[in-house]
């Protein structure tokens, strides 16, 4: 269901996407689809231990094997100072990044890379990797947040001292950082509360689960200049990170973006890229590296497992008056969990006067976490929105009504600081409340749950170019990989501005040497930030074309306007000039028609989503089946509603997987037991119903068409929505994810 609108020809329509034909015919080229003549194949030797000191690495036998052209270890990468880039959670520590790519003195998780080999065939490379002899001294490991945070826990990093404590620590710890948000007077808040609910929640590490494994082809020339073909969420970042880790100059590396087969945040960092580039430099040949699925699970991604304790108090009239949250997130082997956005978003939906939120970033012997769609927010919402549901029940207030009584609105100060600008949270709640789903009848062992979620969204550094070809067609060029239909959305905005058919515009994702810098495709930023740049560039072009028409007609510029893809005389003194005519004659009026705009826009409109879930629980098996699901989300303005719905549906289903099935399972030695899609159980089509969508449109005043990011918000409410539905069906509160059949049966047998 989509709000219909008038006044736009292309914005809000559903054209076939420009890259669609290549994707339904098998012609689209993803990361692993590149090859060069004579290229070598690279593989990674990974640690079998979760925590061990590397005593020695003997390459003698491996290096002598037939077909082996280069081998590298941690000793081949430069030492990088321990400095975190500026910014909050987005900050990246290149020393840690380098050590995650190739272990130095210690391995910190099973799957941690120890060496990389390039050989003439994949088999030869694999055999050589097996012939590398590594001598390890096994160290005690920490595998849970509880263990890792204990005072006498084995420490992963001797130089890691907790930041953010009241007094500086005198010894290293696995807690890298404490984050605190506080406001108001908690004692007074609890005093005022008539009802208080306090609960503890846990979630497991889950993987982004993109279907395309990481892949790269690197070719480094004799002059040290290199080219990378790889799929990522940002080829400029791949260049920056890769050259930083190698100690090379960014300008010496060109990164050509492949089509990306899913990212969800997991392809915002590097793993294989510097290994392939350096192996290529050493071997003098191109090197291709592709991860196996097992490697993807064991050594990339996931997002944090967590432990959270939430306490909230409300007055009898439903007003939330006090809340505390204690949250600890697994960072994996190096600091940098999304605890920052976790503490910022956990209570961000509600206007609560008295608050204390405390968050901990904790390292342990598991793979380093990576961004995953609205990083840090979904688990936080699972906890907070479960407590809100309990409060609603205790107060005897409908859960949507309780949320409406406390919902943040324009001008309210967010718990983490700034005032909300124009937002549509209330509208999502009202649409959910009025949706037929919310009042549909339910059967036995069936239940309905609701939950909401908040995400910041992001702007970011952006370059876009719009050029007109001599036939009046246009090229819209950006530098942000298109994961879910952004090329179509950018073309639609340009078509709307230029007044030409959307399919006379070719949207292109250009490489690092063909367009100015662009931040990654992340933070749900592309339709917003790149959209602003494309609209600005289109408007500059229109202004330029009007000026040229004025020149041709010998009239003042003010007497020319742009209407329906043509320059038109306001006095009717001359016949209109079409885009084709202006473009084909542009040599005589000042040269080619092209405009480039760079922006770093603020005002990425905040996103809110409210979701309704119906489940049926099988009391004999504990299996939870989602019967019906509705996603209501504020998109600001849906440029291409199909792909906005797609983001909402895809996010919700990832959340349903997180809620019901997905988890990293480790044996007692910390080795992942389910590094494949058979045992890491992501939702399949037969698990699910249709996912109904309601696009709410509260336009973002800081975008020419009102766009808010839509990519991430949809994954935030599902776990709580499912848990609240399971409660409604069974009377059991599920506080630990996933709600797999065995856990649900355990809960049911507690009777």
């Amino acid at each position, binding site marked *: 269901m989509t709000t219909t609108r008038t006044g736009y020809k292309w914005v809000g329509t559903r054209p*076939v996407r420009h890259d669609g034909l290549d994707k*339904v*015919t*098998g012609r689209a080229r993803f990361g692993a689809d590149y090859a060069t003549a004579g290229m070598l194949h690279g593989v990674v030797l990974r640690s079998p231990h979760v925590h061990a000191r590397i005593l020695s690495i003997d390459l003698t036998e491996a290096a002598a094997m037939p077909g082996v052209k280069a081998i590298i270890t941690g000793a081949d990468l430069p030492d990088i100072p321990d400095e975190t880039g500026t910014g909050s959670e987005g900050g990246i520590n290149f020393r840690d990044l380098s050590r995650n790519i190739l272990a130095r003195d210690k391995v910190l998780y099973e799957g941690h890379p120890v060496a990389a080999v390039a050989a003439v065939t994949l088999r030869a490379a694999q055999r050589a990797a097996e012939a590398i002899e590594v001598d390890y001294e096994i160290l005690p490991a920490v595998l849970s947040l509880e263990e890792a945070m204990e005072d006498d826990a084995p420490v992963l990093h001797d130089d890691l001292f907790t930041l953010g404590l009241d007094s500086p620590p005198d010894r290293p710890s696995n807690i890298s950082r404490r984050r605190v948000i506080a406001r108001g007077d908690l004692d007074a808040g609890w005093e005022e509360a008539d009802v208080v609910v306090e609960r503890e929640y846990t979630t497991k590490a889950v993987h982004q689960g993109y279907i395309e494994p990481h892949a790269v082809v690197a070719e480094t020339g004799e002059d040290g200049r290199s080219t990378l073909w790889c799929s990522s969420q940002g080829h400029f970042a791949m260049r920056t990170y890769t050259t930083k880790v190698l100690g090379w100059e960014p300008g010496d590396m060109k990164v050509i973006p492949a089509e990306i*087969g*899913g990212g969800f945040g997991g392809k915002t960092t590097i793993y294989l890229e510097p290994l392939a580039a350096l192996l290529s430099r050493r071997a003098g040949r191109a090197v291709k590296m592709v991860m196996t*699925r097992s490697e993807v699970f064991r050594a990339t991604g996931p997002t944090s497992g967590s432990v959270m304790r939430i306490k909230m108090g409300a007055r009898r009239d439903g007003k939330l008056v006090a809340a505390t949250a204690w949250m600890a997130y697994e960072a994996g082997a190096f600091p940098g969990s999304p605890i920052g956005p976790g503490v910022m978003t956990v209570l961000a939906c509600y206007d609560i006067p008295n608050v204390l939120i405390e968050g901990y970033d904790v390292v342990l012997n598991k793979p380093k976490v990576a961004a995953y769609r609205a990083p840090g927010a979904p688990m936080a919402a699972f906890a907070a929105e479960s407590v809100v549901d309990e409060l609603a029940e205790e107060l005897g207030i409908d859960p949507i009504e309780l949320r409406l009584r406390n919902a943040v609105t324009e001008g309210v100060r967010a718990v983490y600081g700034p005032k909300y600008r124009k937002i549509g949270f209330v509208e999502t709640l009202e649409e959910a409340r009025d949706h037929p789903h919310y009042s549909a009848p339910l059967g036995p062992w069936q239940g309905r749950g609701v939950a909401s979620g908040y995400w910041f969204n992001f702007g970011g550094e952006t370059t876009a170019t719009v050029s007109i070809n001599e036939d009046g067609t246009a090229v819209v060029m950006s530098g942000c990989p298109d994961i879910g239909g952004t090329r179509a959305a950018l073309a639609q905005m340009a078509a709307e501005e230029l007044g030409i058919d959307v399919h006379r515009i070719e949207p292109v994702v250009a490489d690092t040497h063909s367009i100015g810098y662009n931040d990654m495709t992340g933070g749900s930023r592309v339709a917003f930030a790149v959209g602003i740049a494309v609209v600005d560039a289109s408007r500059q072009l229109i202004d330029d074309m009007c000026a040229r028409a004025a020149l041709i007609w010998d009239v003042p510029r003010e007497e020319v306007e742009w209407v329906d893809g043509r320059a038109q005389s306001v006095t009717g003194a001359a016949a209109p000039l079409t885009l084709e005519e202006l473009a084909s004659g542009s040599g005589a009026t000042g040269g080619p028609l092209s405009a480039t705009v760079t922006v770093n826009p603020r005002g990425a409109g905040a996103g809110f989503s409210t979701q309704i879930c119906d489940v049926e629980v099988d009391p004999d098996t504990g299996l939870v089946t989602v019967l019906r699901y509705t996603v209501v989300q504020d998109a600001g303005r849906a440029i291409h509603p*199909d792909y906005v719905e797609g983001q909402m549906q895809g996010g919700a289903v990832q959340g349903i997987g997180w809620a019901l099935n997905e988890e990293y399972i480790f044996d007692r030695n910390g080795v992942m037991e389910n590094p494949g899609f058979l045992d890491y159980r992501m939702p399949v089509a037969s698990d699910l119903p249709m996912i109904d969508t309601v696009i709410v449109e509260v336009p973002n005043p800081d975008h020419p068409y009102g766009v808010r990011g839509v990519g991430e918000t949809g994954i935030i409410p599902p776990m709580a929505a499912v848990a609240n539905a399971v409660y409604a069906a069974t009377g059991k509160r599920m506080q630990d994810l996933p709600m797999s059949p065995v856990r649900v049966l355990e809960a049911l047998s507690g009777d």
Partner: protein
Amino acid sequence: MSRTHVTCVLNGDEIDFLCNDYQTLLSALRDELGMIGTKEGCGTGDCGACSVILDGQLVCSCLVFAPEVEGRRVETIEGLAEVDHLHPLQDSFLEGAAFQCGVCTPGFLMAAKALLDRNPSPTETEVRYGVAGNLCRCTGYDKIVRSILDAAARMSDPERQKEAT
């Protein structure tokens, strides 16, 4: 190392290629024949990205050894469209926005074709089970299921079929 010579019918054409005995059909298609439309998502038969149709049967090409296709008929994504028009499934996927990143799409299209070949008018549930061996992480399956149902409707309606061509 001696290589095995394999002859088969690929997308209607009799072809031959050389491969190693341990090589999968997936690897032969991609690495020996340059047909990169068939994707590898897991290599263990769990994701369906490498789905092809072998003698009318849907298979994961990562679970078939290349020499096994000797004398057999293989259909891949590259053979789905005709010279001047797409298969109705491809039209439906395009118009129904049935993919986002698109890496699972070739596998879904082959699985859907295998389904419609044996059941031209499936129910929603039959579609959901027909593609249950294919993972998509982007869409939540809603638009994929709708597009397959739409393609089935197109294929059984002569008027709409004419429209498409």
